[in-house]
């Protein structure tokens, strides 16, 4: 229990650090942030607009005051207003967040369904035809960047073969089948790379655990191979797999930005790219904050999962 509380405490601390950095980032840039944000292509911005923006961002107050005000706003869930249309950032994020989560969830499920059994099979039949083919495929899958996979998918399956729509979004409530059709390609794009990572890790972990002394003990007891696999090998191999999954969460979340862009999936990341292009700092700040919190939370879940799997971690 102490472990869980402590781990949650660390996560809260990390979220605070992230919020502070995001707060400081814009203020550490040399020059006046408002001027920088309004500069487009080297043209000096309208001084009146700059003054207006300074007031909106609260930049004319002392730094300490700004910080306290900012943190207070964050605590009550206010992420400020978009510079583009003056709508609350929090509302827009809340509308788009479930779509991103849906994409990640679908991709993760696909990747686990594909990567884990394949890795297990490759490890059991190590050196066999399946192992060699799957290992080679995984190497290729890891080498092709996610936006290339997405772009090529669009080029081949949508533009070339007309099997699937090139991109877009329809809510599930409105059109369930169409929704799933639109979800398939972006989810598959993310899943391919993740499945390759999972495949490699599962294969390596299963092979590693199979060499351990306690597997020899289980064999010496006369335990059936299937049970050895299920009770001894898999349980212990899951730990390194979970670790690797955690290490790749960051690039997974980053990857969705590119995938949402390629497939016009109106999730958080699309919002982010538009905001970056428009230099809409409050919106960028809000999205980065939310995704980082998500990231920290996912890491927390992984850590707790790890403790659940390994009694040695629990007892510290």
């Amino acid at each position, binding site marked *: 229990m*102490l*472990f869980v509380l*402590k781990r949650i405490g660390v996560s809260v601390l990390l979220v605070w650090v992230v919020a502070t950095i995001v707060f400081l980032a814009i203020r550490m840039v040399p020059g006046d942030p408002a001027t920088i944000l309004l500069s487009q292509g080297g043209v000096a911005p309208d001084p009146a607009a700059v003054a207006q923006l300074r007031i909106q961002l609260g930049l004319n107050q002392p730094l300490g005051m700004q910080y306290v005000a900012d943190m207070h706003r964050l605590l009550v869930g206010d992420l400020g207003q978009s510079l583009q249309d003056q709508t609350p950032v929090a509302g827009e994020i809340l509308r788009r967040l479930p779509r991103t989560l849906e994409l990640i969830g679908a991709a993760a499920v696909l990747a686990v369904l594909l990567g884990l059994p394949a890795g297990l099979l490759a490890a059991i039949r190590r050196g066999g035809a399946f192992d060699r083919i799957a290992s080679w495929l995984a190497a290729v899958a890891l080498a092709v960047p996610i936006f290339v996979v997405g772009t090529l998918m669009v080029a081949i399956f949508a533009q070339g073969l007309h099997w699937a729509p090139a991109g877009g979004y329809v809510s599930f409530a409105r059109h369930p089948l169409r929704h799933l059709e639109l979800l398939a390609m972006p989810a598959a794009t993310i899943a391919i790379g993740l499945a390759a990572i999972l495949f490699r890790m599962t294969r390596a972990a299963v092979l590693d655990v199979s060499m351990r002394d306690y597997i020899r003990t289980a064999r010496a007891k006369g335990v059936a191979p299937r049970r050895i696999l299920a009770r001894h090998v898999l349980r212990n191999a899951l730990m390194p797999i979970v670790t690797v999954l955690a290490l790749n969460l960051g690039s997974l979340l980053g990857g969705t930005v590119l995938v949402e862009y390629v497939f016009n999936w109106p999730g958080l990341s699309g919002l982010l790219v538009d905001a970056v292009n428009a230099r809409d700092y409050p919106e960028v700040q809000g999205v980065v904050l939310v995704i980082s919190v998500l990231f920290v939370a996912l890491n927390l879940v992984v850590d707790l999962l790890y403790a659940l799997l390994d009694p040695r971690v629990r007892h*510290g």
Partner: protein
Amino acid sequence: MTPLVVAENLSKHFPARRMFGRGRPVQAVSGVSLTVGRGEAVGLVGESGSGKSTIGRLMLGLLEPSAGRVVIDGTDLGATDADSLRRLRRRMQLVFQDPYSSLDPRRTVGAQIADGLAIHRIVPSGERRARVEALLARVGMTPAHADRYPHEFSGGQRQRVGIARALATGPEFLVADEPVSALDVSVQAQVLALLADLRRRLGLAMLFISHDLPVVRSICDRTVVLYLGRIMEEGPAGEVFERPRHPYTKALLSASPTLDPARRRRRILLPGDPPSPADPPSGCVFRTRCPWVAPVCAGAAPPLRELAAGHFVACVRADALGPVPDAPNGSVSQQ
């Protein structure tokens, strides 16, 4: 004449490093006083967790004591600055237990033997090679071995290299931390013979750390028996071995297997495991496993008493120990 190395009332506590929650500090060593005379070999005997390796590191100034002090030839290690301590290291060296991790896998053994020569500028760089070869010859190896890497050698040969490295600076005091326990029996004897020979020829003072009583007896003048970071018994090696006075020494001797049927003793089986050094028993730390335990043992920690010339025992009942009682602790078996 004062002894070369004097350790007074040494204690070492390690803070408990736990990820979560606070543990009690581990009392690795508590109030140990020890001397090693010039040319003398002192054996430090104990099981795992007895603090014997910690004492070795403390005596070389590689660890700082939590309390007490170590004086080498009049110099208090704790009171010297870092530079003088580094210069002093020339005079005291360490031989390790594990011949595999004690040598840097990425450098030739010659280069590693030469390290000490270079650090203390003992011989000009042009003569280093010759000195390295002489050192290798001294430990029974050939000059050509200097250009090889550690992985090309067997465990026994690596241990010889480790000894040559320690000898390079011309030390007067050598701490040998279980130098043969990782080696096969036949090789063990080779390395022990080498150490005994070097000690005789170079007049080395030696602290010989081991868990193996017969090994200690064969190479040491004096034996110190440790349990849970405290000295239980101390005396001339043969004396402690032939006439142990402390219950723990008796049990340890009776438990160590022997080839000689004539010497096969009545085995005293100690019950259970040693207590955790983070939570030692009050009074005599051995009382929880001692077959002769009496209520008085739970009181104050027994001091070391001189029972015979140079023979010290930390047991209040040492004068009155009869044959092994059946109660309250432990069982006795007849071989």
